[in-house]
Every structure is written in C-alpha cells, then in structure tokens.
C-alpha cells in the first residue's frame, strides 16, 4: 500500500497523471518519488509536493493508493487507470479518473468537475458532492462514458452524463440542469431532485429521477405510467411517468419521472 500526503496547501492547480495504480504497481518507492508532475507551469517531482510512503501490507491482492489531505487543486488522479484501488481521504480535484478503464476510486469528501470524464470501465464512488460535467467527454468530443459505474452520494452539477454511451451512474442527492444531455445509451438514476432540461437532445438510454423535476422539455412525449423500473437486478419502486424523446433528434431515450414527487406533471395523464 502506498500512502501519499500533500506537504503543503496547494494554491495553484497540480496535474498528476502519474498517480494511478498502473504506474505505481510497476515501480519501487525509489522510482515513484521522482515521477514528474506539473504545478502550474512548473514541472516538479512527486516527492517535492507529496510525502510518499510504502507499507507492505497486502490485505488483498489489490494495489492500494491512499491519499489523505485536501486535494481539491489536484487534477487527473487515476488517469487511464485499469486496475487497483485509490482511496482519497478528503476532497479531490477535477478530472478524477479521466479515461479510466478498470479498478476503483473512492473519495471520502467532494470531487471536482469532469469526474470520470469519458470513463470506460471501473468504479468511482464519491461520498460528498461532485462538480459539473460528471462523466462528460472533453469539450467538443462526443465520446462520453462507455462503461463502468459512478456513484455519488451527494449532489452533482450541470450536464452530468453528457454524451453518455453506456454504464451506470447513480446520484443520491440533487442534480443541476441538463442531466444526461446528448445521451446515447446507459442508465442514470437520481434519487434526489433535478433541475430543468433533463435529457435534452438525448437519443437513447434511460434517466430515472425519483425526486422533483420542475418541467419536462416540450420535445418529450408521454408514453405510459410504469409501476417500477428494473436496473440490472435492482427494482426501483415508482410509479413513474415514462417519457420518450428527445424528438428533435428522433430520439428513443426514456425518462422515468416519479409520479408521487411531481403532482404538477399530472396533466400529462390526459394524453395517455
């Protein structure tokens, strides 16, 4: 197990693409310490900014990296990771688990924006809140989340699941606007409330909101009322209004919106 601790409070962004289990597993402690990272526009060695420790304690076979402290300025932890486990005791910065393919990341605090950007596999769990653009691809790209799992126990910001093409995302708190925008496939489950414009321009996939939604986009049409939704083996109890859209994109995406939390949407029932 590797233990990393920031040596000081970071005031400017730090990019640490090298903090992944793939890199650490191949190297000894002496090789890890001089790994290069960026602090602003300056290149530094890992041990200039972090205390790095190695403890030979293998509870299981997984490679474990434990980072404690405030990492809200530290970007790109777990970049393109394929295996192992990273635990962050504190807040994480943006681009956590970018392009991840496997392994898992757990954050005890909050995570920044672009969490799990274009993730293809593996699991990310955030105990606190996440920023904007959860699982979204780089600006301009349409290659969003393809697989894996993102669980956020708190709230998430705008445009979560942008261009999502597979996998599962659960947000236990509330989300801001444009949840699942441009979605192509996969499933998003929100236990709390969502702001407006859920599923804008979605083509396929499922979005389930159990809380309050102020309004449904006019480009969605009501299909029926479902008593429950099944996600893999888990059954989510409803009832849910089921909408199909986004019709401007000839989409067949499905919105499941809780009936009980949204009495103001009852007028849709006239169209059934």
């Amino acid at each position: 197990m590797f233990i990393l601790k920031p040596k000081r409070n970071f005031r400017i962004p730090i990019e640490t693409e090298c903090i992944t289990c793939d890199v650490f597993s191949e190297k000894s402690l002496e090789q890890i310490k001089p790994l290069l990272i960026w602090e602003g526009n300056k290149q530094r060695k890992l041990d200039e900014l972090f205390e790095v420790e190695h403890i030979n304690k293998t509870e299981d076979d997984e490679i474990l990296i434990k980072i404690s402290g405030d990492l809200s300025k530290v970007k790109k932890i777990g970049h393109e990771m394929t295996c192992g486990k990273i635990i962050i005791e504190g807040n994480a910065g943006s681009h956590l688990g970018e392009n991840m393919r496997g392994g898992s990341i757990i954050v005890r605090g909050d995570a920044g924006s672009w969490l799990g950007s274009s993730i293809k596999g593996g699991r990310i769990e955030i105990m606190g809140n996440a920023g904007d653009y959860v699982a979204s691809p780089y600006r301009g790209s349409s290659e969003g989340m393809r697989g894996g799992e993102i669980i956020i126990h708190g709230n998430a910001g705008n445009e979560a699941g942008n261009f999502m093409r597979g996998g599962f995302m659960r947000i236990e708190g509330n989300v801001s606007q444009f949840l699942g925008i441009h979605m192509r496939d996969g499933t998003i489950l929100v236990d709390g409330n969502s702001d407006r414009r859920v599923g804008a321009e979605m083509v396929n996939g499922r979005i389930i909101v159990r809380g309050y939604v102020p309004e449904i986009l006019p480009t969605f049409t009501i299909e029926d009322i479902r008593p429950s939704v099944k996600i893999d083996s888990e059954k989510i109890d409803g009832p849910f209004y089921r909408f199909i859209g986004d019709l401007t994109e000839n989409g067949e995406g499905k919105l499941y919106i809780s009936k009980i939390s949204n009495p103001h949407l009852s007028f849709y029932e006239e169209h059934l």
Partner: protein
Amino acid sequence: MTLMIKNGLVYDPLNGIDGERVDIFIQDGKIVDKVDERKAKTIDASEMVVMPGGVDIHTHIAGAEVNNARLLRPEDHFRDVEAKTNITRSGVGHSVPSTFITGYRYTRMGYTTAITPSMPPLLARHTHEELDDTPILDKAAFPLLGDSWFVLEHLRDNMIEECAAFVAWMMRATKGYAVKLVNPGGLEAWGFGGNVRNIDDQVPYFNITPREIIRGLCKVNQILHLPHSIHIHTNNLGKPGNYVTALETMKCVEDLAAGDKPIIHVTHCQFSSFKGHDWRTLESGAEEITRYVNRHSHVSLDMGQVVFTDTTTMTADGPFQYILHQLSGNKWVNGDVETETSAGIVPFTYHRKSYVHAVQWSIGLELALLIDDPWKVFLTTDHPNAAPFTTYPRIISWLMSKAARDRTMKRINKRARSKSLLGSISREYSFYEIATVTRAGQARVLGLKDKGHLGVGADADISIYNFNPEKVDPSGKFITLRKAFEDAAYTIKDGQIVAKDGEVVKSVNGKTFWVNPEVSQNLTKSVTDLKERFQEYYTVQFENYPIPESHLAYPSSIQVKAEV
C-alpha cells in the same frame, strides 16, 4: 549552400530517370550540373531513394473552412499535441493541424509543395495570412469561381472574353493560382436551400446550367493560358449513382481539348465514383471512370483516398455537407460567403466495418490501379476529407504492395470485400510510378515548371528516403516501406536541409505562387464597370477588395499573357 547527393537511386520521371545512380548537385537553391566538390557538403545516399520534393495538388491546409474546423473541433487538438523545440513551434491537431505543424508534418514526409484548393475570394486575405504562417512549404491557393455571381452572369450572357477579364482580375485580386469549381451552380442553389441534380439542371434565377458554367470557365482558362487546368469538384458529389455525373462532366469539355494537355482536373474522384441507387446498393463506379480516363487525354484526376480514421470533412459544397451531417448526426458548421460560395464542415469517422466506407476505400485504390497512365491520377486524400495527409505513406504502401492491400482487405466489411475489384488487381506501383503520382505528375498538371523534377535549373526541393529497392522488396516489406515514407531521411527545400531522419532541423519560409494574367486594356475596363455591383452586393468596396502583393510575406508571381 552547396550540396552534393551522391550514389542515390534517383527517380525523376519528368527527366525519364528510373532508378539510376545519378549524383545531384545543388547551388543557391537550384539544381546545377556541377559544383566545386571540395567546398560542397556531401550527402551519401547509397542505400537510399532520391526523388523530387513531394507536391500535393489538393489539400485543405489554410483558409476560412480550415479555421472554422479548428474552432469546431477542440477534441481534435486535444488528441494530438506537439511541443515546441529549439527549431520548431508548438501546435496541435490530428485532422486539422495548426499552420506551423502542417508545414513540419509535410516536411517530415518529404513534401515541399502544397496547394490549398478552396479559397472563397472574399476571404483570400485570411487564407494568405495562414499560408504565410505555414513554414517550409511552397504554396498556392485556388479561388472558388464556379458560383460567383459575376461569372454566372457573364456566362449566361455568353460574354466569355469579359468573363476572362473578370477571372484575370480575380486571380490578381485574390492572388490565386487556378480556377476552382465546386458543385458548379449547386452552391448558388444552396443559397435557396436547393441543389442541382445533374449538369443540365437550371440554376435558380440565373437561367444557366452547370454544363455551361464548366464549359465557359474551361474556355476562359484556355484564353487566359493559366498554368493549371480548371479544377473541379463535381456536381452530386458523395451521392450514390454520381459516377454518371462525373463522366458527363469529363465529356462536356471533350471537344475543347487541344493536344495532350489536360484541360480538366476532376478532384477527389473517389467521392464522384459511386454506382448504385442508394447507400445499400452502393457499388464502385471506378471501372467506368477509369475506362473513360484511359481513352482520353484531356482529363486528370486525384484519388481522394479514404483511410479508416477519425477526420474532419470540409468542402465548399454546402448541400453535400448537409447530407453528411444528416447521415452521421455529427455537429456541423454551415457557411455562406455572400455572392461567391458556401461551405460546410462535419467531423467524420471512417469505419472499417461499415459497408459504405469500405467501398469508398476500395474505390480510391481501384481508380489509381486501373488507370494505366500514372500521369493522369495523383495521390491525395483531399486532406482532411477522406483522411489527414499524414496517411500518405500508408496509401503509398497500398499502391506498391498487393500484400498490404490484402492485409487491410481481410479486416474490412465482408460484403464490401466480396464486391471489391481490388482482389483481382495484381498491379503494384514501382518507385518510378510513385514518384509520378506524388510529385512529377502533380507538378506538370499544375504547370509548376521548376517543381517535381531534378533537372538542371529546377528548384532544389528533394526528398531522400531510407529504403533500398535493390536489396529490399517493397511489396513484401511494406511496413518498412511505409516507415521510410513517414520519416524522410532528408528533406531539402531550396537547397537547404530542412528535415533529417523524420525530424525538422531547420525552418525556412516557403513561397506563395500566384498567377498574374495580362489582358487587353479595353477588357480591363469591363471589370472596373463592376464597381456599382460591388456597392450593391458586397460588404467591401471594389477598391478594398484586392490584396496588394505586399500583403503576402513571400509572393512569387507567374506572368501569363492572355489571348484577349
């Protein structure tokens, strides 16, 4: 700087040198017959192939459409980043690289001349500014004239000479090199949301057909004695069944041909060689096209070869790009340049397993392999429409090696494979033919007298590749061959070594060629009569429109004398 290239296997098709060991001497940027050997720097090319510097007749490297594509595709920059070195500047971009990177990447492959083929006249200033920022390469730009209102009106009224005077003024004003037509008539119709269906369809409000535009501009081109022929992107491009339109386009100027000189260049012909009724029944029309081209000498064409990769399509053909946007569902940009032209940009990925894309891949190679005379067909990808120019080495390996083609064939869509003619074509290009399709032929068709050959007096643009055909068989060792063409052992530009072993070692400035046609005084007056029309239709005044030569950093004008 004085240079000697010793013992290289030289391929110089314009001078008929086919793999002979000839020494080449360079002084003051030109090839000479003798230098003082004691003072000259010597390059030992005994295990290498020596060719003239590469010439690319059709590549979108600068201008409004390229810059819009850069704005549209941040993800394309993100994918491909090059850091600066002591010699080169930094840059980004896979399919639409920034200007400096464009120059460096061409240089690494041994290319020294690149022509950007679609310059909306109104945006010429910007195009030239970008060309000035593209280092090392010699460049030129073709103004889009097939849908200009003034051209359409002159041709409608059968005023060929006045049209010629206008085109001559346009070449001078925009510092252009040749007449480019994109979907003639169709772009004007696109201004009203329409298109033309064939070359005899009427252009709305103009009472003229694409056939008349093509023939008219072809005559204008001949009257003005422009160095290049008309350069045409055919009507109906990218639609199943369009090979008929391509054939009609070639046929419609057949009677204007004089001598063996090509009078029409059908560009990225792969996109114009589709047979079938819809995308499901799409087939290759390469056989019909090549049969015609083999029998006629007034046509030249370039491949527009598809390579399976992520790229960006950009043409002035607005209606075609709209269809592509609808097909792919990708984001797009649509543009309209006043009374001149339109534009569209759509990011696109060619998939191996897609039937249509695999057929397209096959068509490009069939065109190149079925045309017997390599002087009529040139290697391009219509960068970046069918693939970025960085894939040229791969295409060279497909042309030179059946094994390389078979290897890709195995991995493409099954139905496309069973319908493709490629399996039955055993032809493999020789180095001599490769030198023709990538250099000599293109330079000859462009009318660049000092390019594409290694004779005395030519510009000392030379590329040397680390491959010895006497010892290694290019057909079997196609990966070695591809690597050799990817990283040129030496690239020499104007007598200076600019790249060595695939690294840029010196950044020099390339010239921008433009044509200055001279027409008689009374015809020049017909152009100045257009002032009022400018006031009526344009956002700029007649006097503000032309770019002074001093605005170009490294201009090189070619004087031609018109018949009128």
